[in-house]
């Protein structure tokens, strides 16, 4: 029964004299009930009789509404069983009184005029009163009402209002919510009956296998797959017969008890079997026949419901369901109209380790030509969703192939369509260009899940990528220029530029993708055709590639590209050559960059000066840059470099200049400029840790005149910066005090470190500490790999400072749970002696092992 509370405030309990309308209604209702009673007495109180009775009640309500005068802005809607036209003799009449506008005095008057006569003639009305706008938000806490609304049927009043309600109410989100609630309600109801249909005194409405289960089965099909029951365990005709039987029994119970009672008790079983005309000389025989019919029909309902629960697609997103054959659109008509949700279907398939169903693929194929690329990702969220889809993981190749086959991939990326079935004749490639491209992605996907011990090193590189989706995007576009016959890498970049524009990629991501596409052949050329034992070859390649992230991406892109040429192309031999070039270049990038300093004539400086903003001059910029590692120019975009120059402007001893910016929703960037002094790096790291900041990436740079520039990216898990308006000032204040020696850091850190140690995650790596005097001409290089933890950098750098070493450059990286830090250090201006190295590494290892 429906909750009538919402309508409660409109009740007017004052007794009114039955007017002429009331008398007429009484007569109409009495006639309808007499007709139904006669049907039930003949044992024919099934579906047909109940539909006739419902129609008569409809007519009565229409009369009542008409008597109340014009009703343009109200609709009377039948709900639940009445909506299904299964009204029994004593069923409540469940109604929605729907107003188009705000409910005011006139509407309240209408309600009184409508409801009072019904109450007067003894009808039990379960009514809900709503304004149309109420349906703009989902009444998530009222699942029974939502379920009843699925059976909504217009009875009287404005039909157009009902249509507007329909379009507001029937959304994929609402349907998904109702389905989830319904499944839960079924569980709860069944548990009240010990989850068995074989009750000696069954409730023909509520018991397992009874009328509610029957309606629930139909509802599940309606919400998921309207054709579901055709494939069910029972012939649809037998399912309908079961319904007719249960309704006939329920009608008989209402007649026999003269009330809304649905339990087929022992006593009522005898009377019902008589009424339904069961043969048998003894009452016991008649009852047994009735009950055997009951259980047979209840079992049909029960099995159908079980089938529907198991087979119906589980909602996995707006308008998306997971069924046994994969991801389907719950409402294909809606799906055809909204292409932005198509990508979500493929994402759901990858997440659920399944496919997109043939029906969904045909739906896309049928409608895909109506849409342009932008229609698939109209907003920021859908652009992000598209990039998320491209993360390498099991199933990506298969889903992209499905997207390609149904025409979606070529619509989302028209550039890719240009190489569809494209044949390029050469000695190496075995597949069309589009398939070669997709196979590169499969190669990456296989690497992401490989258990081959030999390939773990490359799998680790893949796992370490911050944005692997950019690599997949680059792979997807690396050969699109092959639609033409000349230099395809240049043409691919030209075409890819449109894609990165449409996706609104941030500048650095955009540059990375275009770089990878432009130079996708470079690394294989060097690895397989150049003497990689020549340090100059590696040095040039490192200078060309610039950063470790790009190196990792190009290594994997090269690997995937070679592997997708043919099954024989990527030999262990080639993989080894590629790996060696990767390692040599990685070592060069992380260990030797301190040897290469920026000079006046440095390439890239001219550009920086040419685009110099009005508040800076060339002299100030060159003074700032001179003596910093050359890599600085590759690590930071121009805008950031200008910011750093401003930060370093006029800096005095003990002064700390800093800027904090939010990079994205979780990562912040802090730039600190100050003059070098003992324990400086350690103090800065310590202050950040004392505010709960988790440093994930960073660079600490020193120029020969003692200017220190530290740039950290960190997460602020406690949201200190977000929640405190004066957070930056507080951070700066503490930093200045600590750097100037006015405040002790240890007490600030003590409590926090205790907390952090207690909360450490389960992943542990044995720490690696290695000092090396060979890699760099100026520095002792200290490679440290350890489990990441709050305050880790502080602890490491403190030990280094305690050993009297100067920290000149630091490269900080975090890959998953692993912290990878490379320190460039000196002691008294020189590299460390072997014994000094030994003492330092032993001390560091001890500290790391103690705190890990």
């Amino acid at each position, binding site marked *: 029964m429906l909750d009538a509370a919402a309508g409660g405030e409109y009740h007017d309990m004052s007794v009114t004299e039955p007017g002429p309308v009331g008398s007429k209604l009484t007569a109409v209702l009495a006639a309808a009930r007499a007709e139904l009673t006669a049907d039930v007495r003949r044992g024919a109180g099934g579906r047909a009789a109940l539909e006739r009775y419902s129609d008569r009640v409809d007519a009565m309500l229409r009369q009542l509404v008409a008597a109340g005068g014009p009703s343009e802005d109200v609709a009377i809607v039948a709900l639940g069983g009445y909506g299904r036209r299964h009204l029994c003799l004593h069923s409540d009449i469940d109604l929605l009184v729907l107003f188009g506008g705000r409910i005011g005095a006139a509407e309240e008057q209408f309600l009184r005029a409508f409801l009072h006569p019904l109450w007067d003639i003894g009808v039990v009305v379960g009514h809900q009163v709503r304004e149309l706008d109420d349906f703009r938000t989902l009444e998530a806490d009222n699942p029974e009402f939502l379920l009843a609304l699925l059976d909504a049927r217009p009875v009287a009043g404005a039909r157009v209002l009902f249509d507007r309600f329909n379009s507001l109410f029937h959304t994929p989100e609402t349907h998904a919510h109702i389905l989830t609630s319904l499944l839960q309600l079924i569980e709860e109801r069944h548990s009240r009956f010990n989850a068995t249909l074989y009750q000696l005194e069954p409730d023909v409405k509520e018991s397992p296998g009874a009328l509610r289960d029957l309606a629930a089965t139909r509802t599940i099909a309606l919400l998921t797959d309207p054709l579901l029951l055709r494939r069910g365990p029972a012939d649809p005709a037998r399912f309908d017969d079961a319904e007719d039987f249960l309704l006939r029994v329920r009608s008989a119970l209402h007649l026999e008890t003269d009330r809304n009672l649905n339990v087929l008790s022992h006593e009522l079983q005898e009377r019902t079997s008589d009424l339904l005309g069961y043969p048998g000389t003894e009452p016991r025989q008649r009852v047994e026949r009735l009950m055997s019919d009951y259980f047979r029909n209840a079992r049909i309902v029960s099995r159908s419901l079980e089938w529907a629960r198991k087979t119906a697609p589980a909602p996995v997103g707006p308008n998306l369901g997971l069924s046994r054959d994969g991801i389907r659109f719950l409402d294909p008509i809606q799906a055809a109209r909204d292409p932005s949700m198509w990508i979500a279907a493929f994402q759901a398939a990858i997440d659920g380790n399944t496919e997109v169903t043939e029906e969904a693929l045909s739906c896309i194929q049928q409608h895909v030509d109506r849409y342009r690329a932008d229609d698939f990702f109209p907003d920021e969220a859908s652009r992000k969703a598209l990039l998320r889809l491209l993360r390498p993981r099991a199933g990506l190749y298969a889903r992209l192939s499905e997207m390609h086959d149904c025409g979606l991939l070529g619509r989302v990326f028209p550039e890719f369509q240009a190489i569809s079935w494209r044949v390029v004749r050469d000695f190496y490639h075995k597949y069309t260009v589009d398939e070669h491209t997709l196979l590169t992605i499969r190669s990456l996907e296989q690497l992401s899940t490989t258990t081959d011990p030999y390939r773990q090193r490359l799998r680790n590189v893949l796992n370490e990528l911050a944005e692997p989706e950019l690599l997949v995007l680059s792979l997807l576009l690396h050969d699109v220029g092959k639609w033409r016959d000349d230099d395809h890498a240049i043409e691919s970049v030209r075409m890819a530029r449109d894609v990165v524009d449409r996706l609104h990629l941030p500048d650095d991501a955009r540059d990375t993708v275009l770089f990878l596409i432009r130079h996708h052949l470079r690394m294989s050329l060097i690895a397989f055709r150049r003497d990689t034992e020549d340090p100059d070859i590696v040095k040039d390649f490192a200078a060309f590639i610039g950063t470790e992230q790009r190196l990792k991406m190009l290594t994997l892109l090269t690997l995937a590209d070679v592997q997708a040429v043919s099954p024989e192309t990527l030999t262990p031999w080639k993989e080894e050559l590629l790996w060696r070039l990767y390692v040599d270049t990685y*070592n060069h990038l992380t260990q030797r960059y301190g040897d290469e300093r920026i000079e006046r004539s440095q390439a890239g400086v001219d550009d920086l000066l040419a685009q110099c903003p009005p508040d800076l001059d060339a002299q100030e910029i060159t003074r700032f840059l001179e003596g910093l590692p050359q890599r600085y120019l590759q690590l930071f975009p121009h805008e950031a470099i200008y910011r750093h120059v401003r930060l370093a402007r006029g800096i005095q001893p003990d002064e700390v200049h800093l800027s904090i910016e939010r990079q994205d929703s979780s990562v912040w960037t802090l730039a600190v400029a100050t003059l070098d002094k003992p324990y400086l790096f350690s103090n800065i790291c310590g202050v950040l840790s004392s505010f709960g900041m988790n440093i994930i990436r960073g660079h600490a740079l020193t120029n020969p005149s003692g200017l220190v520039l530290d740039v950290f990216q960190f997460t602020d898990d406690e949201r200190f910066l977000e929640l405190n308006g004066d957070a930056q000032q507080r951070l700066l204040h503490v930093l200045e005090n600590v750097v100037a020696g006015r405040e002790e850091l240890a007490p600030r850190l003590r409590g926090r470190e205790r907390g952090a140690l207690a909360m450490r995650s389960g992943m542990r790596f044995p720490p690696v500490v290695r000092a090396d005097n060979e890699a760099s001409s100026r520095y002792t290089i200290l490679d440290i790999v350890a489990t990441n933890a709050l305050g880790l950098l502080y602890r490491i750098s403190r030990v280094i400072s305690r050993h009297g070493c100067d920290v000149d450059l630091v490269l900080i990286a975090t890959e998953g749970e692993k912290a990878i830090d490379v320190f460039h250090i000196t002691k008294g201006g020189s590299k460390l002696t072997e014994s000094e190295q030994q003492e330092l590494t032993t001390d560091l290892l001890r500290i790391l092992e103690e705190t890990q």
Partner: protein
Amino acid sequence: MKMIKSIIRPNKVDDVKDALAKLNIAGMTVTEVRGHGKQKGHTAIYRGKEYNVSLLPKMEIEVVVPDSLADDAIKAIVTAARTGEIGDGRVFVMPVQESYRIRTGEREA
């Protein structure tokens, strides 16, 4: 006839092929191989951890030439593949008794 088997640096394959082509030696078999000679591999370091590179990627080129061309071919290979560093590779020369052309069954002395 002589079979000349050269183990060379991977990046020297094109130079060696070009040098042999100048002598009109076009037929050859090129194989990716791994091994070590005196070079014996070396220790590489990745992220503070050492690992051994004991078998180094090399290329093997096999050609069969008439006795009269053998000396020139060997010289061409050695010149083209040479860097002067350890790891330049080796050239092996073996006599070939007879050879047959599979398509025609024809014997070549």
